[in-house]
């Protein structure tokens, strides 16, 4: 029952911290735009004055992209490095904003204040960054162990079923996702704990995160799974909608922009729901841990 209480409480906390969702969305918009705007400018200037854009009406046309010339090819060549930098930036920005978010999700809940939000963000930044990076590396290593190694062994052995590597990959991915939820839980508990502390103590926070995760593994993991499925389903539906929608007018394109950004915003809200639910579960468990037993009460009365 705690699980559903935590989910409900998480939802309520998210509602009270909706400004945080706006901040995360804005952060993602700015980060992605930083990456995309030069590309957009390049493409627009390259195609300006040509009727070739008619070939893009039904979707991407490889020939048109290719004819953009060496500049485009250079951009594509730089894409992996750019994406890596983008992810680093997003991780750093996420660590910063999540500091404020977790702070605004804890009890006692006050009225959301931007001053408090950014104060907590800056206070928690380094701890959150370390927590994110440490647990991110753990998740990466987990993926290597669970996905990379089995596939490598199967491929190197060169014998056995042809479908085995594919099935192994699928099974490995599923196992990885299910196990990675534990690490995500640990990171959420760690950040929720850190947000409640006055001084940064990131490694203690990570320790707390794992302890709490394993002490409440069943309820925590199930809750995380529910949240993961909801988020995954939402992301899949959103991306499908965005991909399939092919507006042909300027107004339609504007609507696409609005709708797609609303969907990104909702994705942010779902993430904060996860943070709120984990924070709530942690607080419930904390209150249980500190509740005096009946024997203690009787002794006190005597």
């Amino acid at each position: 029952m705690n699980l559903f209480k935590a989910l409900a409480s998480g939802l309520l906390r998210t509602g009270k911290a909706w400004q945080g969702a706006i901040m995360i969305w804005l952060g993602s918009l700015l980060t992605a735009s930083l990456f995309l705007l030069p590309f957009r400018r390049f493409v627009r200037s390259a195609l300006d004055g040509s009727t070739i854009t008619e070939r893009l009406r039904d979707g991407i046309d490889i020939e048109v992209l290719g004819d953009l010339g060496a500049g485009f090819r250079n951009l594509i060549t730089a894409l992996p490095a750019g994406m890596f930098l983008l992810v680093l930036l997003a991780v750093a920005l996420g660590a910063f904003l999540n500091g404020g978010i977790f702070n605004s999700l804890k009890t006692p809940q006050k009225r959301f204040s931007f001053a408090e939000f950014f104060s907590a963000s800056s206070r928690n930044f380094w701890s959150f960054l370390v927590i994110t990076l440490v647990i991110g590396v753990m998740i990466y290593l987990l993926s290597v162990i669970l996905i990379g190694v089995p596939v490598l062994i199967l491929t190197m052995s060169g014998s056995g079923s042809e479908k085995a590597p594919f099935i192994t990959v699928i099974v490995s991915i599923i196992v990885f996702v299910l196990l990675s939820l534990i690490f995500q839980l640990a990171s959420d508990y760690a950040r929720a704990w850190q947000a409640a502390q006055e001084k940064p103590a990131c490694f203690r926070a990570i320790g707390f995160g794992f302890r709490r995760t394993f002490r409440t593994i069943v309820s925590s993991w199930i809750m995380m799974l529910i949240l993961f499925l909801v988020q995954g389903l939402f992301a899949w539906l959103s991306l499908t909608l965005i991909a399939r929608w092919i507006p042909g007018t300027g107004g339609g394109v504007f609507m696409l922009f609005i709708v797609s950004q609303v969907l990104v915003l909702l994705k942010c809200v779902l993430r904060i729901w996860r943070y709120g639910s984990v924070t709530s579960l942690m607080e419930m468990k904390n209150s249980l841990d500190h509740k005096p037993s009946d024997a203690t009460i009787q002794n006190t009365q005597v």
Partner: protein
Amino acid sequence: MILKKFFSAIFLSILAFASPAQVINKEPLSPRITGYRIDARLDTAAKLIHGTMEAFWVNQGADQVPDIQMHLYMNAFRNSKTTMYRGSGPAGDSTKWGWVDIEEFKLADGRDLLPYMHFIRPDDGNPHDSTVVQVMLPEPATPGDTVAVKVKFVTKLPSKIRRTGYNDDYFFVAQWFPKFGVYEPAGMRARVSGGWNCHQFHANSEFYANHSVYDVNITVPDDYVVGTGGMLISEQDWPDDPAYKTQVWRAEDIVDFAWTAWPGYAVYTDKWKHVSITLLIPAERKDQVERQFTAVKNALEYLSDRVGPFPWPHLTFVDPPMKGSGAGGMEYTTIFTSSSAPMMPGWIHMPEMVTVHEFGHAYFMGILATNEFEDPWMDEGINSFFEARIMDHYWGERSGMVDHRLLKVADKTSARSSYVYSPNRQVVSNSEYSWNYPLGTYGMMSYMKASTWLFTLMGIVGEETTDDIFREYYRLWAFKHPGPKDFINVVNEVVSKNHGDKFGPDMNWFFDQTLYGTGICDYRVAAFNSFRQDTSKVRIQSGDSIVAGKAVCDSLYKSSIELQRIGEVMLPVEVLVHFSKGNEVLLSWDGRERYKKLEVLSGSPVKWVKIDPEYKIRMDVNFINNSKIYETDMVPVKRIMNKLLAFLQFYISAFVL
């Protein structure tokens, strides 16, 4: 005289063993210049093939020929310094070498030719290469003579399959026996004097051989499934060991005999008209079977309609397992290899593309037996051109290669892209020996550029004329060895017949620029403007073409259109002018001048101009500058960017814990 008698006797014996009676087709499709009878036993443990071969070559030229020359292709895998490895880079440390050793080499009368056998290196003089052997005859072969030889050989297959070789219990056996080069009499393929055409094995080269009859007995362990380019005649236990079986195969009028053996094949059969089709595929890839048959049947239908009939009643194709993937995507006329993968999604047409391409080589190299060493564009280029036509015809004009709702890619797009986007597209012409393409341009030039300029040729002369060209090419050159000039002559003849002198006295100007030239093609609309006319002074004027337009006297615009030829290649192009009232006029420009100004009169100003509006000149390296409009419709660009933005936001959110 004695020699004549000797050769006549040999010839008679040849006729006896090489089955004068046709087994597969009622009449021979090709002159019987060479023929082979081979007994081969596969030693699956030692990866050896023990072979004995009786083969003949008939001197059909007018020269006395003092020698014979044969390919020993398998020696390309003999050491890391062979010409093939010099071209491809060193073999990996774990590579097990391959080779072919001649143990006996005799004339049919028993005279030993081994002392007269030595390796030659006609292409590069590389002393470490032993892929061509020359055998001096005791007496020169005079015109009409038949040279019959008996050869005992052992072939060791290489590991790490590069077209041929083994991996574990999988075998793909190609280029495995001593094989005659082609003796080209004077005049053949524009040759000035007669001589052997017998090149070494290069990293970037394929093969060249006469159409032959093959009678091949293959002995393998009982549990092995065998596929070959021949027709199975019989099968029996091997007398020396009942755990082995011997299969008797017969092939007629093909240029190479390859085979495969593996216990894991599942065998599927289907039929298209008169052709029995056999597919050997790993049993686990059952889901790929139907698409493979569909692909090969589509290719059969298309090429039979547009080029000529497929003359054999049998066809085998192989989808190698992962461990034999190095054998994938290769052709041996009546057997070829495709390349799929288990669980390959249906929207990726890669397996179909490989099947269509490799089957196409039955025509462009198999029937029209061009010299792949010297004129790779004639097999790979023409075949890639047909591959793209077939894929886009059957799988969608925009989706021949990829047909996903988010991304569609036509096959012809991938060919053009490889050429257009290559930084080395001008380093060499398309008319080079296959191993002479520098900077890794062999594939791009011989496959992609050639395919692209063939599409351009079709854009100029039309699809119907293009089909007529290939039908005539087939009619004149099937089961012969056409060279580039022969193909060009066919083009000239058919274009002239269909179009008169519309394109000049011949099409040499086209080939001079595309096949033999290194220039690029790029046309550009530089500018246009329209001015309202004083109707009292109207004078109808146009560029190269008559402008059909109504001169509405109360509102007449004179428009100037400025065109540029940026590239070196000069091709006739169409220019479509669209006016603001929606009417259009199609002009033509011979495309020769560097700068061209066209003037048109119309009842409204010009809205946009397009050179080559249907993108028929696929050699044009930049379609973007082919048009001009004052206000580009940026809606599609904005849409794509908005989507990319949202995708990117979702993507980065996955990395934020």
